[in-house]
């Protein structure tokens, strides 16, 4: 049982770390495209790792209800498909509207 706790703690910690790195990138980067470059990947991976940790915890803690880990697996699958699609849609809309990419030496915006 202690192995399961260590694995769940490692997965939750890694997921929260990735989410925090994505948010710091959203604050720190100079441009819209670079901000979405940071968050579009870190956020997806962080959410997936946290939900995977919850899934492992449920699978060993409450083994009589296996519908809930199935729901969480579907949630991971949906996030891994939907989140990059939403990021791509916003980026394409910004590029077609005429937001210029940032170049070295320009002001932050």
């Amino acid at each position, binding site marked *: 049982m202690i192995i399961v*706790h260590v694995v*769940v*703690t490692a997965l*939750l*910690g890694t*997921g*929260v770390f990735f*989410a*925090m790195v*994505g*948010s*710091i990138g*959203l*604050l720190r980067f100079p441009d*819209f495209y670079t*901000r*979405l470059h940071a*968050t579009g990947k870190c*956020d*997806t991976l*962080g*959410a997936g790792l*946290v*939900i995977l940790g*919850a899934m492992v*915890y*449920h699978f060993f803690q409450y083994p009589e*209800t296996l519908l*809930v880990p199935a*729901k*969480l697996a*579907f*949630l991971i699958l*949906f*996030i891994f498909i*939907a*989140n990059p*699609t*939403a*990021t791509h*849609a*916003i980026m*394409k*809309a*910004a590029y*077609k*509207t005429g*937001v210029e990419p940032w170049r070295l030496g320009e002001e932050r*915006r």
Partner: protein
Amino acid sequence: MITIFFVASLLITITMALSLYRAVAGPGVFNRVAAVNIIGTKTIVLLVVMGYYFERPYFFDIALLYAMINFIGTLVFAKYIERGEL
């Protein structure tokens, strides 16, 4: 063991507060839409973690529903800005 979920939910809330700064102060509409999308993704994670902390398994159904609403909302907003109509 349940303390781990409490600490994780607290850290995710701090991360959402960091993203909220970009949603309030970010220049232009695209930064705001992107920040709102990211806050929505973190809300899903927060619902899953708090479902274990409060031992309420029906929070996961709300998380599934919120994932779909968040995706559709972001997609509709991007298409609306791109075309000028729906």
